[in-house]
């Protein structure tokens, strides 16, 4: 990818909703505002989502009747955040199914 192309690509992502997965297993969903060469990210209007803890999983599994259990991730509102690049394990961009190129 050359410089201009990369810049265009990053700019095209601005103000899109990103989902950032961090090393500690949390996910952050917010609007992409800024990035730099170290992949530090600034997200606006961010919500944090957390996987259920082991105990909660255990409790749910004990109560569940079937083989699989489904638990909602717990979330809270954080607002404007910076995610340092070193902690990012996965990034996703949200796209409308209807608008995706097939």
């Amino acid at each position, binding site marked *: 990818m050359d410089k201009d192309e990369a810049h265009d690509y990053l700019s095209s992502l601005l103000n899109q909703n990103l*989902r950032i997965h961090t090393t500690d297993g949390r996910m952050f969903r917010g609007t992409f505002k800024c990035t730099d060469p170290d992949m530090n990210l600034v997200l606006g209007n961010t919500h944090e989502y957390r996987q259920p803890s082991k105990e909660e999983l255990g409790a749910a599994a004990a109560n569940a009747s079937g083989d699989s259990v489904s638990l909602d991730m717990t979330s809270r509102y954080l607002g404007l955040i910076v995610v340092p690049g070193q902690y990012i394990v996965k990034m996703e961009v949200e796209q409308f199914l209807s608008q995706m190129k097939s």
Partner: protein
Amino acid sequence: MADFGVGVPDEIARLSLGQGSAPPETLPPNIKSDGIVAVDITAKFSEAVKTLEPGAIVKDGFFTLFDSVAALEIMDPKMDSGCSRPGAEVEETYDVSRSLLPEEVLGIIDQLLCHEMSWHLGYPLSQTLFTSFYVEALSMPEPRSIEEATFVRNGNHNPNEQLMLQALRAYCLGMLKSCGYVNERIKSEHFYEEEDFVTTTYNRTLLASLPTSAIRDVLIEAIAALRSQRGSMPDNLVEALLARLELRRIFLDAVECPKNMKEPNLAKKPWREGLELLPDLSKTHSLAVRVNEAFSATLQRRLASTMPPRPIVQLEFDVAFGHLKGLFADGLELIDVLNYTDSQSLLTFVTCFQAKKPQPIVYVRTLLQTFLFDAMEVLGSMSIRQLLDDDFSILTMPAHQYLDRANDEIEVVHDPRYAMAQQMELFRTRAAQPFLDILRTACQNRCRVRRTLCHLLRDWESLQMDAEEIDQILQVKIEERPTMYRSAMSGSGVESYSLPLSSWTYLYKLRQMEQIIQLGFELEIYQTDELAGMYWYLNYISKSRLHHTERIKSFLMKRVEETHGRPGYSNPTIDAQLQRSLMYARLSLLDAAVTWELSDSLSCLYTVLNRLKLVKAPPRPYSTDELRYEIRMRPFAPIGLPVLPTFEEFTAGTLQPDTEIDELFEYAERAVEGAKRGFEALSKMTAEESFSVGSHARWSSSVKNGLKSCIATKLAISAVQKVIQTSPSLDNLKIKVDVPTPQKAYHEWWIVPKVLPVA
């Protein structure tokens, strides 16, 4: 809030900005929508950012780097409350439905009590009560009815199934509700956020939507259920639990006491009951078993806050209990303020109550403000005019025609009484705010008292100008005849008018100036080598007050003579008012005199100690005496009268270079002897004579401490004198001087040095 200057009108101050009970909640978006697909871009993105030059950024045009400063940094353990320590489970969990032993319930309740008191002392809820899983279960999600306010919400769970959980639930509900009351009370008055108290509730309502009666019912039900179990549990445990539930019930009554403002005895009842109950609480604390798992700092992550997680505040039970006891004792004493006798006694009450060490906690102080000012009525029943007129009549205008209510009825414009009514009303509107601010200021924490007084002083300075103008208008209207003084210099007569309004104002102004200096001693603002100068200045101000009070007294005497000289005169009400004013003048004279003489003596003593290098100045490479003088006197610089001494006068007064040490000691001894006699006379005064009805015990203990300070000063003087006489040279005296902190001195305002021999 509440960092408004005290001068802000109540209506504005009560607009609690940004503290609405329910800020709009941002709902988390659903991340499992069918129409939206998350596309993995990790590889492409990381490749793209690698092409960026060092220092280059890609950013949204509306996003400024300034904004990014406010951003929360993820994975920074100091900022990110969700960040988990490596290896540790992120969220600690606890089963709130588990069955508990009575000892454990006691333990949890006592831990909650410690947290509640920590909150009262100024820690945020997030580090105290909100670290409890039980509190969390009761407050999230917000219960809409009392039935919903249970530890376990799902299904048809009976909250009263287990007696121990029923008792704990009742306790928690009562506690949260009363915390809600306390928070609202504090928010509605002047206080300093973060400095005194943290009112934020992190989007929790503290059960605001549940009626108090319903919570009281839950408590009563739990108490009854416990009583019925007396046989099946050890008695001491049942009694211990009962005492704690009873405390919650009483606490709810206590925080509702402002509604009984018109019936002080009824308002006192819960405070007195609480105080009687408290010993049972501390006695049974030894039965309690702590349940540390029921509290977790990680609960802070669920709060609407971006504050970094902080450790749980751990307050010892004994300390917390001491504060709780203080709260009830102060609350009980506070109600006495409602028994109004006269404005000066009220002022004495408020000043003495607030000067207590330790100072009453924030809640008690705000409660006092509520009593004083709620709904623009003083003590729930008096108008501000009544209070002001009472004060005018005590200080300078006993039975004065200006204060005659009949003046208001006059409609004839050229009648002097019409002018009196008009002008007095004008003066009252101007004086009301500064006067009430004196009371309001006294309710703040000690540092703020001094700071606010410095601001208030300017208001009084401008009020004095208004007063002088109104005095002049009125003395022309009523054709007041001046008193003639024979001036010693020229031999001709000098005219002097009574000027009642400006005299009143000036007296208050002088008292505030004294108080600012005295609080400086109390708050350890001055360094030891500055004490000589500050006592010299205090002496200067109190001398002005003494002279001013003498002037007021001479006009009072004149009024007494005039009134008694009138043919056929007999009116007990007028007589009583005149006597009361004379009594006040006597008190003010004595008070000014002891302040004058003791400060004179201490100033001389410190001058000698400075000269003998027994009190040394710390090195001050960047400061000069003159600059420091300017800073110290900044609050007083804008004051026209008494005029601020020049730096040269101040230096001369402080160093007294032309006076020998012997002479200085002679002055000091004579002055302290006078002060001692003055304090003795003060201590013999009754509550009525000293205008301390309702707070006489506190007032006289302060006087006694003043007397002790006199004796200590005498001892210090003679100790230094003796050493000087016996030692061959002044350079090598075998003593050292210890300047105590205000807490260690007999009186916070009189810092008397201790003279100790050197081995």
